[in-house]
């Protein structure tokens, strides 16, 4: 699902004294400029490797944590059909996390280290998952808006210069379209239902719209790693470009539902064909990123508990494997 602002957490020490020659860097850039894919065993600048490890790991963590807000409604989905769909979607998120962890591992970081960094709070995940899912309509809004924003972000990543990441994203994007469509279908059903149901859909839109816009990360002027990531073709479009694309695509979809966007400044600019929209509350974004969103603590508590509660299963499986191997050797 969800990359966002994943270039946010970078340390400023990226241009430490790397023993990389100008020739090596130039040859690497030439390959990237020629749209050649970089593969795991190829030479790459250490900053490229670090940037990708950080971005792919954060992306993977987001998929894993992203199971929680939706998992909240698995046992309370309104019909068996909806429940089967939601279960499949949450399974997909787990799968996406695993594709991405595998891609990150090709860069030389271990799975255990990535998981440890998530659990210790060192690694970040998309801030959108620190908002609560208060009603069933939130499941619709997440699929429609959050997955919709994720698709905007992720489609260009299918052309990322790093081969394993690009290939993982192709697989993710194929599955993501189902996520957005099932969400929009939930919204459609609610909007065609009773007044109370439509009100529920509107309330969900009101709460998810602005956080969805924040998923694209800070504006271009504030975005610290963007220029380098663009040069390396990790990133293909700027945060603001993608955000604008998302707004332009989504506003007519809301109109079709008969819902109001919670933005008084939203207006079609006839000349450019783009929608102008209001100021994003970046303070809220940074607060949530810093750990002070409505659900940050809960998300981490649940994730750590899952890790702890699963320990005996992992230990048993490992003991069994060792025993079988010993028997075969004997």
């Amino acid at each position, binding site marked *: 699902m969800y990359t966002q602002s994943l270039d946010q957490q970078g340390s400023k020490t990226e241009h430490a004294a790397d023993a990389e020659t100008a020739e090596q860097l130039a040859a690497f850039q030439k390959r990237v400029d020629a749209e050649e894919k970089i593969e795991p065993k190829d030479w790459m600048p250490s900053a490229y490797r670090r940037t990708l490890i950080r971005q792919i790991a954060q992306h993977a963590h987001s998929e894993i944590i992203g199971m929680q807000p939706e998992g909240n409604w698995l046992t309370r989905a309104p019909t068996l059909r909806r429940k089967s769909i939601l279960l499949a979607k949450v399974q997909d998120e787990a*799968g996406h996390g695993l594709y991405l962890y595998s891609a990150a591992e090709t860069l030389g970081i271990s799975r255990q280290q990535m998981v440890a960094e998530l659990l210790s709070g060192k690694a970040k995940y998309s801030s959108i998952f620190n908002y609560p899912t208060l009603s069933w309509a939130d499941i619709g809004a997440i699929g429609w808006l959050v997955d919709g924003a994720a698709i905007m972000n992720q489609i260009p990543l299918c052309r990322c210069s790093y081969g394993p990441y690009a*290939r993982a994203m192709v697989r993710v994007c194929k599955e993501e379209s189902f996520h957005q469509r099932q969400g929009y279908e939930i919204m459609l059903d609610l909007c065609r239902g009773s007044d109370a149901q439509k009100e529920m859909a509107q309330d969900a839109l009101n709460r998810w719209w602005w956080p969805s816009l924040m998923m694209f990360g800070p504006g271009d002027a504030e975005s610290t790693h963007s220029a380098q990531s663009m040069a390396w073709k990790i990133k293909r479009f700027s945060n603001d470009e993608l955000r604008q694309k998302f707004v332009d695509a989504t506003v007519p979809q809301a109109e079709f539902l008969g819902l109001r966007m919670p933005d008084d400044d939203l207006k079609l600019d006839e000349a450019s064909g783009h929608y102008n929209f209001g100021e994003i509350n970046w303070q809220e974004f940074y607060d949530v990123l810093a750990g002070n969103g409505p659900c940050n603590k809960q998300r981490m508590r649940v994730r750590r508990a899952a890790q702890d509660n699963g320990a005996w299963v992992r230990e048993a*499986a490992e003991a069994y*494997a060792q025993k079988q191997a010993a028997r075969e050797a004997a």
Partner: protein
Amino acid sequence: MTTDWPLYEVFIRAKSGLSHRHAGSVHAADDEMALNHARDVYTRRNEGVSIWVVRSSEIVASDPQDSAALFEPAKDKIYRHPTFYEIPEDVGNM
């Protein structure tokens, strides 16, 4: 505390008649678990009719630094391609 389980590379045959193709990788404690994980992670939508898993450590790979020595000798042997030969049109399709 458990260790990081061995990494397995996953290859999937999309349908009979096609060869297995690399899909990704999974961690597993043993071969059987690797197959089960590969099935759960990479074939949720009928992507395959057959799965191979192999421990990543068992794969022998060429080094990108040797790629010139390995692959360049084939580059100047254009006579290995059918388009190298000019056959008069009158001969017909060959």
